[in-house]
């Protein structure tokens, strides 16, 4: 717990005025899920991803996704070694505990799907050999939704490989002033201390996964799922996998709150991030945030 407090404090010092987004990002990692940070450039997506990797004490790699990136650039490839006269596998950046996929929507679908497969299976198959990825394995991807031209937006079916999607948005005025007057963020990044390591993070994940989910809470989540399917306001309703994601995220959030049980409030706190990228509003011109808020409002809490 204390180490998580330390991690959160450091991150809040780095990303000013966004405690909720930061907490959600940490929750996502705690729940063992991959995180998608989606926002316009310059609000600190990459900084947050960097910061997260650092304070979590994870071995991390960063890949800047571009259109000419090939799957092998991420997964790794066999290289002929003159000395031995044979091929040696050179692991790509995906064999890190934390992979930072910057601007994931710039890469071609082939690269995207290679990465997404690794995220889903926690293993990669290269040249007929299946290799397991390290534990824990996280992907933090960033993308810029406003940029449409020359990009390959992640297909909806693959978006739900990410447990949560977090947006940062512009900082509040006070925070922005502090930002302007304060240190360079990049310099600040270098001062961050790892608050955890892989082992302690795994312990915390195991604990969070044990939190009590009562029947009443399960009923509440079911009601949310049903409402999304029935309301007719979404192209498609939430899948059972989404339900599992909701529970996992709520557990992690409750663990961060220091509770041994999950409350509907935990579900409601994480819900917009968990289901925001899994739903598409049917009515044009309405943002998904509005729709999710509306959905939450209509489901009565037991």
């Amino acid at each position, binding site marked *: 717990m204390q180490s998580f407090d330390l991690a959160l404090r450091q991150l809040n010092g780095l990303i000013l005025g966004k405690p909720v987004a930061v907490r959600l990002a940490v929750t996502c990692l705690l729940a063992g899920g991959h995180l998608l940070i989606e926002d316009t450039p310059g609000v600190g997506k990459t900084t947050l991803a960097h910061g997260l990797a650092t304070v979590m004490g994870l071995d991390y790699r960063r890949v800047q996704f571009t259109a000419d990136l090939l799957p092998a650039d991420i997964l790794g490839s066999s290289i002929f070694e003159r000395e031995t006269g044979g091929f040696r596998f050179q692991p790509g950046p995906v064999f890190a505990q934390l992979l930072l996929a910057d601007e994931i929507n710039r890469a071609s679908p082939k690269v995207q799907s290679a990465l997404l497969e690794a995220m889903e299976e926690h293993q990669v198959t290269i040249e007929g050999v299946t290799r397991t990825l390290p534990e824990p394995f996280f992907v933090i991807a960033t993308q810029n939704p406003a940029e449409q031209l020359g990009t390959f937006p992640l297909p909806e079916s693959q978006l739900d490989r990410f447990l949560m999607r977090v947006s940062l948005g512009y900082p509040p005025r006070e925070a922005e002033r502090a930002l302007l007057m304060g240190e360079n963020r990049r310099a600040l990044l270098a001062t961050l201390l790892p608050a955890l390591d892989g082992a302690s993070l795994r312990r915390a994940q195991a604990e969070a996964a044990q939190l009590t989910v009562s029947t009443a809470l399960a009923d509440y989540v079911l009601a949310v799922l049903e409402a999304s399917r029935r309301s007719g306001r979404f192209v498609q309703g939430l899948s059972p996998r989404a339900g599992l994601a909701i529970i996992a995220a709520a557990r992690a959030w409750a663990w961060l709150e220091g509770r041994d*049980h999950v*409350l509907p409030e935990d579900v409601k706190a994480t819900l917009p991030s968990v289901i925001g990228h899994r739903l598409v509003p049917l009515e044009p011109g309405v943002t998904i945030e509005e729709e999710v808020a509306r959905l*939450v409002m209509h489901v009565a809490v037991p």
Partner: protein
Amino acid sequence: MNADAGRRVLPVLFALLLVVTPLAWYLPFWVTGVFAGLVLIRAALVWQRRPLPPRWLLVLALLVPVGFLWLTLKTLVGREGGVALLVLLAGFKALETGGLRDWRVLLALGFFLAAMPLLFDQSPAAAVWLVVSLVALTWAMARLAGNPPRAGWRQTATALGLSLPLMLVLFFIMPRLSGPLWSMPPSRQTAVTGLADDMAPGSISRIIPANTPVFNVVFDGAPPARRDFYWRVRVFDRFDGVRWYEAGTIREETLQLLGGQPYRYRITVKPERRRLPVLDYPAENAPDPAQLQPGLTWSSRRSTAEETIRLPAEGRSGARLAEALDPARLAHYLQLPPGNPQARALAARLRQRSADDRILLRGLLDTYRSQPFRYTLTPPALQGQIVDGFLFGSRQGFCEHFAGSLAFLARAAGLPARVVVGYQGGRFNPDGGFWQVRSADAHAWVEVWLPSEEAWLRVDPTATVSPDRIAAGAESALPVLQPTVPVIGGAPPAWLGRWRQMAEAWSFRWQQWVVGYDADRQRQLFRRLGLGDEVSAPVVLRGLAVGMLLGMVPLLWWWRRRPVADPLASGWMAVRRRLRRAGIALAPSDGPQDVLGKAAGLAEADRIELEALTQHYIDWRYRGQPASAAEIRTWLRAVRRFRPRQRAA
């Protein structure tokens, strides 16, 4: 809901059968039989989902039983006729009932039919059956509205239970009418108590105690004792073996009133067949338009008899009616038809044993005391030797039987005698300061002429058998139980006697407070409730308001109650309701912690209380900690006590 309301309509038919069942005792047996047959046919059609018979066929089929009814009863109006016709029509209505609307009309008809048995019987059993009918009808109503059977029962029980207090309040407080709006045509075999032109004791097997006022009297000064309230209307001086009637042959009389207490009164009356009731014994000089008639009775001179007249009258209470009978009249008052040998033998025996007229008369009266005679309004009918049949057979009857048989015995024993019919008793109305005599007070007694004293003596054999009838009025004497327990060898066991006493007491109360609850009783009740002697419209309204409020109490209690499916959920709902009432805007999507957050503005103590309540709720609902029933009860009690207030600004 379409025309085929499905089998949901079967309860309607079932309820109708229940409602009509008691009428089987009072109507020609085939009427209820036909009704039951029609209803069962309809039920079978519903069950098998078969179509209804054509309407023209029904109309034709209806003509047969209605015609038969006409032949049996000779009428289609009146109590039997009207009710029988209604029952038949209801049966045929059931056979042409198609849509939901029709079924509802039929059900409403069922509610109306439920009142019909009450015209014949108002015993506690009838009341029980009324409740049974109401339950069945209400349930049918709930089923017809589409409720499943179990929910229907629950709703029926709730609705009837909640409406019971309202009904009781209305029953006791709604103003009652003192007289009828119109009169019911008399029907066969029964008589309304009241005065007829003749008196045939054996032929009437049932008497309906109609309780309509006949006349009102206001005394100038103190009235005579109530037991002397004998209002004479007619004198029957001839008996033909079946009935007593006015021979109309006596023209001249030499009457003389001796002694007694003089009094004056004013009477308001609507003459029946031009006769006017007068208190024993009236003065001979009758004021206009009254006219003295033979037998010291008054009649009205006016031919338009049906208008109410008021006239002052005077008379003497406790006076002696002296008259010197000449031989012709003596013979007239001793005349008897042949027959009734046992009565004649009894009279002869008593005559031989008696030293003088008074002892003889006492001996005759003792006959009624020494034998188990019973006063009842539902005696068995008599035929043939009706006097013997009554005196030595049934020994059950009302005043006509007693008066007729005593007059017969007296004549057989050689004492001139005649039957006087009129009214006995009356009820004082303290609000109006007048006495009222009702048709149920109708009475018959005997006057015997004692040769030794040359005077007519009033003898009331009914008083010998049922002193209550004279002391308290007909009403209190009515609830006489039929001897249902055979008495073998001596007195019935003590517990049986006790039980019978209790039953009679309850029966009396039933009679007094339910069957006999009328305008007078109502006034009495109001007085007892302290609503004042002046029963005016505001008083009634006030009573109505108070009573309605009392009747609403269970309603309010029910209103507060919520169905408790999950006590925890309903308790939490109550907490949220209380908070909303305290002005805290809560949304259904607020979880327990949201609620706590929004309630931060509560007064300190309330907030701590809310925190405790919420923590328990969370522990049980979300933390998976098991809660014992006792813990939940304690928590629910705390919830009920929880009345949060906002912190003062």
